[in-house]
């Protein structure tokens, strides 16, 4: 028990990793007497353990020392989490759409429009149970689409995602919305084919890369990488400290992107602006310069690569008559040819690595497999794996439990609390749909694609198929059950998803979530989940870059309002189903696996990797954490790909040849007619599905390319209601109507031409629809590109294709088509738009209903906006 000032200190993992993978260890001070959260602060590794016990590490280079410190570098999203718990956007109670009658008229066309009324938990669970039974009897289990992936709260025994599928696994199955490799699209679909690197496509060999760069590196290219934003939901600011360390020891940081992202803004030594999704042209021109000037490592390629001659032939213009010169590239990508040549020469003369943080136009545009492959092609031409020349990541340092993906000194163990996890684990099912194809699968089945699309599968899986939905003889979708209600604002072509959710074929939509936002507004029944502060749990934080740690998460406060955890809510539905007998018999017991929550937590503790005898369960609950020390002799681990560099035969890659495949024989064999993803990486201008280039017919109508990054003050769609973030001047733009609009950055040159000024409200649009935003005229975006983060909450003015959104959820107007024909990835950045100023008062007159919803400028959309009065 602490004093009244310090309170009682407990530990919570305040990230948005989900999938039972913890993150962002924080200490939370609570006032037990008053059932209140006092403050959120860094977690201290040394509260019960000494630096010697932690085997405290240091990197020493160039006369300087880099240290991990003894407390976590928490993110602003963790720090402001309290506001999510007490948000006015919290769903207060189970809700039913007023004009949805399971025994009569269901009015699917009114989803997204009609309001909700309060019902009891009993009523809600009994309706849901009845609908599940009806689906099973009428159509079969495949008629139920489960959406159980994405970045929910980091909870384990109260899993934010997948309690639904755990239940349906016990009574017949379902159709799974596949967990796309959304963070790594281009690398997954492209880079794998040149260098293997399963399961992500990004390098799997990162050990000691920070030490290696500190000792041997001259420069790091940040190709769209934003360490100040992207890691915040599943890490803290260790990556930012690495950038500061590079500055301290003189490692040059070069940023290549259309925008001055938050890392470029404070850490960059140089910015090379490149138009969105034109990186492939820039990369090809670098290759051209090296080939022409003879400044690449042919001897390395002779022993480490296959098919380089095919690539070289293409680069020099042999294949299409177009040499990929810097002048050729300049016209496409907007980088002056003299700068391209200077960059190529700099790179050839120095030890250069490339840093990534996922996200952005580089990796989430159409044909993103091409820049991803080309990056590896370039690294290969300069002796990939030599000292100071690797690819590495600034986040996800223990992803999938892989011990070789941390570039910092690793701990002895990557603890795994999977045994306690009561949610969905990435995998696949007989009936499944890529997340990117959900709207089409609902509206126009059948749909077809290649691969299981589950993030984490090996390269070969991309050649399995084609798969079809519906599975032969099985049903199309008639019910949607989601604990991930942000499809509209996070995926590709949200306006089409609005059409799908309102389609006649969808008889029932049920959503469970803590907050009333996005797809929630399309539900027929909503059940209120609570936040992790309201439950007891177990957690890990393996990605701080300091030490891996397992912790006990004491319940901070009582459950708020009429909420239950996702697992508790679904357990109630299990009980309601039991009355139907048969396959539903004893369902609650089966769903809970015969254990109490405490027993699940204990099971997690016992199997997570804490050495036997180190501490009892009671000691664990008392001390609240167990850290794993730094690996002995970590300094001796080979850095990055030095093994492959020194001995390619002894340390082959996971490509068919074991070498870098500039020409992929597998792609050539499997997809011989693929013009978008051919056997060698190319510049792809347009295709049957995508015309997202400015120098096209469409480009004349929609002359700007949109950059849509991971937001600074959200994790995708999470945190958009946090009052303390929204009041930051650059987080939202206050319109003349008092509404806080999502910012759009416009370069002064474009703003001048268009007559736009800071504070104007404008519409970003293409033929798929429009979204509003608040203009910030800024030098942080290059001319010809516009910038608006993704993930702002949807606030529909007109729903469906060609619609209009007030919230600035630009995924609504992203292309529906996937990365390319045989690559079912998302395209959510680097697409064409136009912009024009709007008069919000005229719009309010035109659309009085949309503009008169309950709204609190501080919090934005509030739950009451969608509820009938007095509900």
């Amino acid at each position: 028990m602490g004093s009244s000032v310090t309170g009682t200190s407990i530990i919570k993992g305040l990230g948005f990793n989900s999938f039972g993978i913890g993150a962002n260890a924080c200490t939370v001070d609570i006032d037990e007497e008053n059932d209140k959260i006092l403050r959120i602060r860094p977690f201290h590794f040394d509260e019960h353990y000494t630096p010697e016990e932690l085997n405290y590490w240091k990197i020493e280079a160039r006369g300087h020392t880099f240290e991990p410190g003894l407390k976590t570098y928490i993110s602003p999203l963790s720090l402001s989490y309290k506001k999510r718990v007490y948000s006015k956007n919290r769903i207060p109670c189970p809700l039913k759409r007023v004009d949805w009658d399971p025994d009569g008229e269901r009015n699917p066309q009114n989803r997204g429009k009609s309001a909700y009324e309060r019902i009891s938990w009993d009523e809600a669970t009994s309706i849901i149970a009845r609908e599940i039974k009806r689906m099973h009897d009428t159509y079969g289990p495949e008629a139920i689409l489960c959406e159980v992936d994405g970045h929910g709260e980091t909870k384990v025994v109260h899993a934010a995602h997948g309690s639904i599928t755990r239940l349906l696994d016990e009574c017949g199955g379902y159709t799974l919305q596949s967990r796309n490799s959304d963070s790594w699209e281009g690398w997954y679909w492209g880079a794998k084919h040149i260098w293997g690197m399963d399961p992500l496509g990004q390098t799997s060999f990162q050990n000691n890369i920070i030490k290696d760069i500190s000792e041997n590196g001259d420069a790091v290219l940040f190709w769209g990488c934003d360490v100040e934003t992207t890691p915040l939901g599943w890490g803290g600011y260790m990556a930012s400290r690495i950038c500061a360390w590079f500055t301290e020891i003189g490692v040059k940081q070069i940023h290549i992107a259309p925008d001055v992202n938050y890392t470029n803004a404070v850490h960059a030594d140089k910015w090379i602006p490149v138009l969105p999704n034109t990186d492939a042209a820039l990369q090809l021109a670098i290759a051209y310069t090296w080939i022409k000037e003879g400044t690449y490592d042919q001897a390395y390629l002779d022993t480490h690569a296959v098919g380089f001659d095919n690539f070289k032939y293409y680069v020099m213009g042999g294949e299409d008559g177009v040499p990929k010169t810097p002048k050729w590239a300049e016209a496409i990508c907007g980088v002056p040819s003299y700068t391209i040549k200077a960059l190529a020469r700099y790179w050839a003369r120095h030890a250069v690595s490339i840093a990534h943080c996922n996200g952005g136009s580089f990796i989430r545009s159409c044909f993103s497999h091409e820049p991803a492959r080309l990056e590896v092609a370039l690294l290969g031409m300069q002796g990939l794996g030599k000292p100071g020349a690797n690819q590495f990541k600034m986040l996800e340092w223990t992803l999938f439990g892989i011990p070789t993906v941390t570039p910092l000194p690793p701990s002895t163990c990557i603890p795994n609390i999977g045994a306690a996890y009561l949610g969905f684990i990435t995998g696949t099912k007989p009936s499944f749909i890529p997340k990117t194809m959900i709207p089409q699968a609902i509206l126009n089945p059948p749909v077809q694609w290649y691969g299981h699309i589950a993030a984490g599968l090996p390269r070969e899986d991309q050649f399995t198929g084609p798969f079809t939905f519906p599975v032969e003889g099985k049903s199309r979708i008639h019910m949607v059950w989601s604990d991930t209600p942000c499809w509209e604002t996070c995926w590709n072509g949200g306006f089409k998803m609005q059409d799908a959710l309102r389609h006649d074929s969808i008889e029932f939509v049920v959503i469970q979530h803590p907050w009333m936002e996005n797809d929630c507004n399309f539900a027929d029944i909503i059940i209120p989940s609570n936040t992790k502060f309201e439950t007891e749990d177990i957690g890990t934080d393996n990605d701080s870059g300091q030490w891996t740690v397992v912790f006990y998460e004491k319940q901070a406060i009582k459950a708020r309002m009429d909420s239950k955890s996702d697992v508790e809510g679904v357990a109630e539905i299990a009980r309601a189903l039991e009355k139907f007998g048969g396959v539903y018999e004893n369902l609650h017991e089966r769903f809970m696996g015969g254990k109490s929550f405490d027993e699940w937590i204990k099971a997690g503790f016992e199997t997570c990797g804490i050495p036997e005898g180190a501490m009892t369960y009671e000691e664990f609950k008392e001390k609240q954490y167990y850290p794993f020390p730094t690996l002995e002799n970590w300094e001796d681990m080979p850095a990055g790909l030095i093994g492959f560099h020194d001995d390619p035969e002894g340390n082959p890659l996971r490509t068919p040849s074991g070498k870098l495949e500039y020409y992929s024989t597998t792609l050539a064999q499997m997809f011989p007619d693929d013009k978008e993803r051919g056997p060698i990486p190319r510049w792809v201008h347009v295709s049957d599905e995508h015309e997202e280039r400015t120098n096209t017919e469409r480009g004349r109508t929609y002359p700007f390319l949109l950059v849509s990054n991971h937001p600074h003050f959200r994790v995708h769609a999470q945190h958009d209601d946090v009052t303390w973030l929204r009041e930051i001047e650059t987080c939202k733009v206050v319109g003349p109507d008092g509404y806080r609009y999502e910012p759009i950055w416009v370069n002064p040159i474009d703003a001048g031409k268009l007559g736009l000024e800071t504070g104007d409200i404008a519409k970003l649009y293409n033929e798929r629809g429009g979204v509003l935003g608040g203009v910030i005229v800024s030098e942080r975006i290059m001319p010809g590109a516009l910038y608006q983060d993704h993930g702002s909450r949807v606030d529909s003015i007109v729903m469906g294709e060609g619609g209009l959104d007030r919230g600035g959820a630009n995924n609504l107007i992203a292309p529906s088509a996937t990365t390319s024909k045989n690559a079912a990835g998302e395209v959510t950045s680097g697409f064409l738009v136009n912009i024009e100023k709007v008069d919000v008062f005229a719009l309010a007159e035109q659309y009085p209903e949309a503009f008169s919803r309950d709204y609190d400028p501080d919090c934005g959309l509030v739950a009451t906006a969608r509820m009938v009065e007095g509900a």
Partner: protein
Amino acid sequence: MGKVFVFDFAKCTGCRNCQLACKDEHVDNDWAPYAAPQPDTGQFWGRIEEKVRGQVPKVRVSYAWRACQHCGNAPCMAAATAAGAPDAVYRRDDGLVIVDPVAARGCEVLAEACPYGVIFYNEELGLPQKCTGCAHLVDEGLPPHCVDVCPHEALRFGDEEDFAAEIAQAEFWMAERAEADEPRVYYLNKPRRFLGGVVVDLEADEVIVGAKVTLEDVRTGAVQAALTDEFGDFWFEQIPASEYRVYFEADGYLTRMLEATTENEDRNMGPVALYATA
């Protein structure tokens, strides 16, 4: 002697943790006798100010922490005395200046008296409010919440004698007021202006590496020189806001002079073309 804050511009990355920590600590929490709760939004006992500098492609962002300066000769204390409420503001033995949440009730004049604009009048409570240095935590031997969450030690707090080296080279938020107010928040590496560009040979379509660029401050006559780097770039950092003549020289090229100003903002001169002599 006593407690001081030190803020380093060169280390701040603009994460806003300090601003959010202030809200986390003080909104909905009553830390009597030092502070009543801070309003949820609109008032900032500690905040980050952002400034975008330069032009494409030489752009940077600077951030500054703004909060009570815990002045040694605080204008708010004088104003309180003048208003007949001498107990409304007091200085603790450790130097932290506290607006007393009881004695200062109704003392709106305090908000107006602060030249730094960091005292806010809470209409709901009828109370002027500001940063307390988290005195309630300091009493427990803990750092202020904002300092605790800074990931780069850009914002520090501690005993004056421990920061002697920093204080020796520090500046103040408002230099012109420093002598009178004796502020106890010390700023390091306060940004001046930068001026940069890239030197190119357009005919050859190449950047010019190693060109000599000389900067002459027209007002002071001060001169400094730099060579272009491997990208043809030149940078002059931390220069005064002024009018400049910039001379460009490179072997085999005609020397060129251009005028440039940093009077109102940092300056990217863009590509500067040089022409071959022969």
